[in-house]
């Protein structure tokens, strides 16, 4: 049954509908793949019983001809989404064995549409990270092997590192923070996965793993029930193996929600129908500010390839300027930690999750938060508290917000000038090694988000689509940025690139 896990979400859906296999067979194949892939550390919690129960309901519905849009399709859920009765940790020790009594809006809509949950996926702690190395559950290993590594060496490295409670240095990161989601999708441990993106956490891991990641417009998906990192930037979206699969999943994830005041009261389009629209007549902006010094040649070339593919499909390429791009990253690393410092105040040991007792309540807070939060989270909470404190607010937070307005205006101006989508590289490099940047200056790690944070700061939709490989054979992605709530154009243009580049050949199984 291993061929079942190689199917795309759309192929699996069509196969179920055509009754070529049952939902239970499809789900069992995935459960088995998940169980055999534990070396990758993509799942932090497997829920096979729940999956089988959902699959059997799906089979009943399929039999009755009452299939819902995602009927019987097994997916993984980033552990940032609260799932009723299923442990939810946000990759943090501070939540301990927290088991919510409620379901996030995004996941509840997936179950409403018949999807099947395989389990909860690893991620950076509170989604803070670009390599999945800040997770309390340890790093996720990318299914992509470093050049000249074979499966045996990789397996031995992981086994040894696990025994030594160390990170499997040398292997590649899947990116982050949705590293578990991207790795699981790339390794065929689910048909698709939910993810979240605050500064690039969907698009960067998608680019690193040769998968497609869509960060919708801010407000497209409800944030209700998703553990908050930075409320004004957080947005849920899908990671899948094809553009079409992303479109299918997003349709179920998206939609207005009265429980999230920032969710947009707009109907959800049939994204899948937009996938095949093509790029004819579209104006594609190529921003000069994304051409960075020291950018690998392969990325330059890939970017140019992407432009040519779109032009070949009838799009017009136009050089544009987004002058405030350079300020996006520093502004982001003020706004996001500021909101995070406040959002994470609730993890205080009083009501749920970890509690480390102390002599008085202040000591209990300190002990709990010292033990429960990892280094990166602590760093950001401290930065955030600092930039909001009296005397620094104007110089940092307020200034960053003003910068954010300018970044947004840059995009508004190019869209007003008729640009339909902006084409950029997704990341400045291909995937790096585990431990390579985690021990370096945090700025090194933050630079991963340089092409993606602008999109969050402006609240726009962005998609990362695999477009080729670097000289070492590692996947690279291109990013398309769209007008607010015009995810459809992004699906259409990304599909053009996907078709031109050819569907990414994902690594063969070595992790079993």
């Amino acid at each position, binding site marked *: 049954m291993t061929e079942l896990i190689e199917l795309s979400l759309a192929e699996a859906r069509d196969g179920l509908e055509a009754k070529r296999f049952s939902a239970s067979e499809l789900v069992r194949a995935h459960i088995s793949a998940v169980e055999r892939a534990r070396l990758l550390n993509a799942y932090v919690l497997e829920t096979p019983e729940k999956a089988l129960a959902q699959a059997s309901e799906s089979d009943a519905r399929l039999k009755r001809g009452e299939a819902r849009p995602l009927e019987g399709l097994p997916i993984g859920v980033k552990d940032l989404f609260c799932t009723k009765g299923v442990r939810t940790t946000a990759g943090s020790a501070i939540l301990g064995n927290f088991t*919510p009594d409620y379901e996030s809006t995004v996941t509840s809509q997936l179950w409403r549409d018949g999807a099947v949950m395989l389990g909860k996926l690893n991620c950076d702690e509170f989604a803070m990270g670009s390599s999945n190395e800040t997770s309390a559950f340890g790093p996720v290993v990318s299914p992509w092997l470093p050049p000249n590594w074979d499966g045996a060496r990789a397996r031995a490295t992981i086994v040894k590192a696990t025994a030594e409670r160390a990170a499997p240095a040398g292997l590649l990161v899947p990116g982050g923070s949705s590293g578990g989601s991207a790795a699981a999708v790339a390794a065929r441990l689910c048909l698709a996965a939910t993810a979240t993106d605050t500064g690039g956490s969907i698009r960067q891991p998608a680019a690193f793993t040769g998968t497609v990641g869509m960060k919708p417009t801010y407000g497209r998906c409800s944030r209700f029930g998703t553990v908050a990192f930075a409320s004004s930037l957080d947005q849920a979206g899908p990671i899948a193996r094809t553009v079409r699969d992303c479109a299918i999943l997003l349709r179920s994830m998206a939609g207005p929600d009265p429980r999230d005041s*920032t969710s947009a009261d707009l109907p959800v389009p049939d994204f899948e129908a937009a996938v095949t629209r093509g790029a004819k007549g579209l104006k594609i902006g190529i921003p000069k500010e994304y051409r960075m010094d020291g950018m690998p040649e392969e990325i330059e070339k890939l970017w140019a390839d992407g432009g040519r593919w779109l032009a070949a499909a009838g799009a017009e390429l136009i050089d544009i300027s987004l002058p405030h791009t350079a300020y996006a990253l520093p502004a982001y690393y003020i706004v996001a930690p500021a909101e995070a410092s406040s959002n994470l*105040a609730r993890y205080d040991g009083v009501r749920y999750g970890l509690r480390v007792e102390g002599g008085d309540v202040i000591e209990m807070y300190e002990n709990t938060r010292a033990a429960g939060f990892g280094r990166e989270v602590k760093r950001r909470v401290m930065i955030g508290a600092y930039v*909001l404190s*009296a005397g620094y607010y104007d110089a940092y937070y307020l200034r960053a917000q003003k910068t954010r307005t300018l970044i947004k205006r840059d995009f508004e101006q190019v869209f007003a000038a008729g640009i339909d989508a902006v084409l950029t590289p997704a990341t400045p490099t291909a995937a790096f090694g585990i431990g390579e940047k985690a021990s370096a200056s945090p700025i090194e790690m933050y630079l991963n988000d340089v092409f993606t944070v602008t999109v969050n700061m402006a609240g726009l939709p962005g998609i990362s689509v695999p477009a080729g490989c670097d000289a070492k054979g590692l996947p690279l992605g291109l990013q398309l940025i769209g007008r607010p709530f015009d995810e459809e154009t992004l699906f259409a243009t990304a599909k053009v690139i996907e078709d031109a580049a050819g569907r990414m050949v994902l690594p063969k199984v070595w992790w079993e």
Partner: protein
Amino acid sequence: MRAAARDGKGLKGIGGLDRKSHPANKQRTNGAGPMNSPLDHKKLLKSATGDWEIVIGMEIHAQVTSQAKLFSGASTAFGGEPNSHVSFIDAAMPGMLPVINEECVRQAIRTGLGLKAKINHRSVFDRKNYFYPDLPQGYQISQYKSPIVGEGEVIVDLPEGERIRVGIERLHLEQDAGKSLHDQHATMSHVDLNRSGVALMEIVSKPDLRSAEEARAYVTKLRTILRYLGTCDGDMEKGNLRADVNVSVRRPGEPLGTRCEIKNVNSIRFIGQAIEAEARRQIGVIEDGGSIEQETRLFDPVKGETRAMRSKEEAHDYRYFPDPDLLPLEFDQAYVDELASQLPELPDAKRARFITEYALSAYDASVLVAERANADYFEAVAKRDDGKSRDGKAAANWVINELFGRLNKEGRAIDASPVSAAQLGGLVDLIGEGAISGKIAKELFEILWNEGGDPRELVEKRGLRQVTDMGAIEAAIDAVIAANQDKAEQAKAKPTLIGWFVGQVMKSTGGKANPQAVNELLRQKLGI
């Protein structure tokens, strides 16, 4: 008079006028700032080193009357089992988001209108960050830079008939915190989150108050307005209305002194006591050569003193910033107009109407409008079912003196009065018709209070009707004079004895004789 224009900008002559006699000063207008307000010497605190002026500003936390909390659907009912009215949002579970309760917004706007305040069509919710176990989110959602209501005013009636205008700085919406219970366990505190997230209106006054008495009167009036509007029940015992009091002292004419904030004073009486204690403390410190440190203090009603809670240095850095989970709160003027059109008549308007419509004294009108239920009761007494008015003054007298007196004595609320407005109205009618005397009316009131019944029927059935038959009265007088010849003689020289004769005649007629007729006839007969 030293009440000269203190900032040098005012006209010199005004300061020298007797404030009480000058109509322009009857209502103190502090709109131009406290520096311009005339000085009232009565309100100055005397001390060995001279006079001191107290300057007071208040922050009132009023719980919004609403079914659900400010950002969650949980109930706001008082007195539930601990943690029985708590949603996932109130407990700040991961991933929970606040959603504004529109009813609370309406109540805040209504209150703003009642305070004649500027309604801001756009306001912003901010997070006020601090750690405390009864603050589950680790921040309070409040409005910091952009409140929903801006400047307004409250006209405050003082007991001596003086009225002052107190400026309102702003009103904003915010969440209440939960309650820490420290007496449930030997070493640990428990937390009750029932209150967590309940909507509060923080109403901030300008520093326009000059005495404990003014402060008490201000809170009383504000409470009255809120209760009229139905936006806060004003129940201080349940903590639904709490005051933070800012107090400073200065020599008359000098700039504002350093203020101290007395937190969470929960009764009007304590507000007065706290201000007096704090002003005395500050004066003592300054007169001893010290200076006032800006700090937060608590009032201890048992010891009658305030004590330091935290200094300015220890003050929290709340790290305010706009709450990214909430959009700015926006509405248009039509929304405000709709709410304005449905406002009830407010105490000031009612008071003015009572004075003109029922010819009441300002004092009586003020007393009657202090509680809406009282005012409604009075109007029901003063107006007959046919819409015609009764004697307003008489109605006010009966309501204020007899009814309120009796209710107070028995600790009853107006809605638990055994005598209905219709009954009391009937009684007033009977007096007006001359059917009963004032004395009999009191007797009748007793009967109505204890036994109930229709006043007119009672008068007939029990023979309470006033005797106006002059023949009967004359006979009674003759009998009294005949039995007291010696006194009748004395009365000629000592006319005050007539009172004794009136008493005797009233006694012999069972109080039913018309006292005026008795008086007149007696004078004739006794030759006074």
